[in-house]
């Protein structure tokens, strides 16, 4: 029980527990009704309009080439190119924040280049150009061929020749292309994450005698991950959708390409495309669940348990901000 403020000691008039009517929101209910009607109309059209042809949609979703495209072209490519992007991106971010001016410059040029090139164009260039320009890769002493000409030697000092054609299946080129491009974006995200960690953390680590690398790995990066994970989830979801660009390489074992192929051969365009659309929805939904768990893990030690489970308005706003602004 709280003390009565001075000057209001009249104990008979001390107010008790509050039993008041909550604020009413009539327009909220109007909104619910309108949305419900619209949703009913939509579902009604799904059911009654035979052109949707849901049984065919279902068959396309189960169709083997479509499933193969989903697993290889969409899921595996997303995972692989995100792994390339995240590892390379964090490396680039650390280089960007390094005291070494050479590393800083290299990182800057990389980010500048890959952010400026559209993914579609990059994939076409890699798909067409690499094989054309560099059918084989020679590993040896740099410039040994050019120097060899001068002194009359034939083949300089080449130790090993790699046949690019033999490894350049479209999917590998696609993963490399998407991964390189993603690294530029991840570098900026990782840089923001690293900068968000208080400088006192690095000082504390080095005062304990930790090397810079160890301080980065054990102290700074784990804390930066709290800031890095949410936008990375966003990037991953964007990447799922960007795998549909793989047809530019060209890659044919890819979800959208296969669904499109079905559409072209059966002339049932909408059902075939709906099949692809539903698969994208499913994959992205699963990823969003995974992201929630990752965020909880890397958020440990920050804020109390209770504020994690029942998110306040700022948390929800942050989530909304992540949902918006996806694809490039």
């Amino acid at each position, binding site marked *: 029980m709280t003390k009565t403020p001075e000057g209001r000691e009249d104990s008979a008039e001390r107010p008790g527990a509050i039993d008041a009517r909550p604020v009413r929101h009539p327009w909220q209910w109007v909104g619910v009704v309108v949305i419900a009607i619209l949703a009913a109309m939509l579902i009604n059209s799904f059911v009654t309009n035979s052109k949707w042809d849901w049984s065919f949609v279902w068959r396309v979703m189960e169709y083997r080439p479509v499933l193969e495209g989903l697993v290889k072209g969409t899921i595996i490519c997303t995972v692989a190119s995100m792994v390339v992007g995240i590892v390379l991106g964090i490396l680039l971010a650390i280089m960007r924040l390094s005291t070494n001016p050479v590393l800083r410059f290299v990182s800057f040029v990389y980010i500048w280049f890959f952010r400026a090139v559209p993914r579609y164009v990059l994939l076409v260039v890699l798909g067409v150009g690499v094989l054309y320009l560099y059918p084989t890769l020679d590993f040896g002493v740099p410039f040994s061929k050019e120097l060899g000409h001068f002194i009359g030697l034939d083949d300089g000092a080449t130790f090993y020749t790699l046949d690019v054609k033999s490894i350049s299946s479209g999917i590998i080129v696609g993963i490399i292309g998407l991964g390189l491009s993603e690294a530029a974006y991840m570098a900026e995200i990782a840089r923001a994450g690293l900068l968000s960690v*208080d400088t*006192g*953390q690095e*000082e*504390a*680590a*080095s*005062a*304990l*005698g*930790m*090397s*810079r690398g*160890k301080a980065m790995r*054990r*102290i700074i990066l*784990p*804390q930066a991950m*709290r800031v890095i994970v949410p936008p990375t989830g966003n990037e991953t979801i964007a990447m799922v959708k960007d795998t549909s660009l793989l047809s530019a390489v060209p890659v044919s074992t890819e979800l959208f390409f296969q669904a499109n192929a079905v559409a072209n051969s059966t002339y049932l365009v909408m059902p075939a495309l709906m099949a692809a659309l539903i698969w994208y929805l499913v994959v992205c939904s699963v990823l969003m669940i995974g992201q929630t768990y990752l965020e909880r893990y*890397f958020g*440990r*030690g*920050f*804020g*109390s348990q209770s504020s994690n489970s029942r998110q306040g308005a700022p948390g929800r706003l942050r989530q909304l901000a992540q949902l918006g602004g996806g694809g490039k």
Partner: protein
Amino acid sequence: MTDTRDPRPLVRALNVSKHFHGVEVLKGIDLDVAPGEVVCLLGPSGSGKTTFLRCINQLETIDGGRIWVDDELLGLEEKNGRLLRLHDKRIAKQRREIGMVFQRFNLFPHKTAIANVMEAPVQVRGVDKATARAEGMALLERVGLGERSHHYPSQLSGGQQQRVAIARALAMKPKLMLFDEPTSALDPELVGEVLDVMRELADDGMTMIVVTHEIAFARDVADRVVFMDGGVEVESGPAREIIANPQHERTKSFLRRILAEQNESAVPQGGAAGPDGGEAAGQSAGAQAE
């Protein structure tokens, strides 16, 4: 300085100077600290005392003079008559022997109290985890936080966090402990518990250099105080003597001002809290908002 104590000081600083962007913040500081001695650095903010402390731990590189800890020259080596700056790895090795406690605690927020204490012994000294855990628990018991070992820093009060930070520094078994205003970020009622831990540490014979505004602590615990202002040492000597009877005008006015402030903030009324108290409250509120 005119002292003729231990001929082998644990810390010897000679003519240390440091400038930031052309501004000289340390102008030739000399300091000898004998093993087991507790030295408090006093002085107004901006006097260079924190910078000097950070130089001893090489969080700042000095521009002039030399510092030795346990007869080892810090940050430099002489080869063929030339001075060479040490590589980061050698500097990290020198830092292992020196514990540091920060104003803002700087605990690792993603690790529990015990994990904070174990981190450096396991990662830097290569102590096995079981040993490090046992020693870490003993240290947490020593600072009165044995039951809080599995709490994250955000679940501890400021005073508790600072005590964990002291345990973390002690886990490396340092020869020397540096304290950079260890109680300045604390709410007034939490200052005592941290000072008590430091007092026990001093009684156990730890060599300590403490930057502080707690005049009573300096008087009661320190063997010697050094009063700094404007990047130079103004006066130094036995703690009780200097604080009771300062010779230099600048020391006198500083002590007058700070003692008046501390008396004021001791009055138990919300409105009359000193500027230190207000700042600390603001910081803890900010930390919660994060």
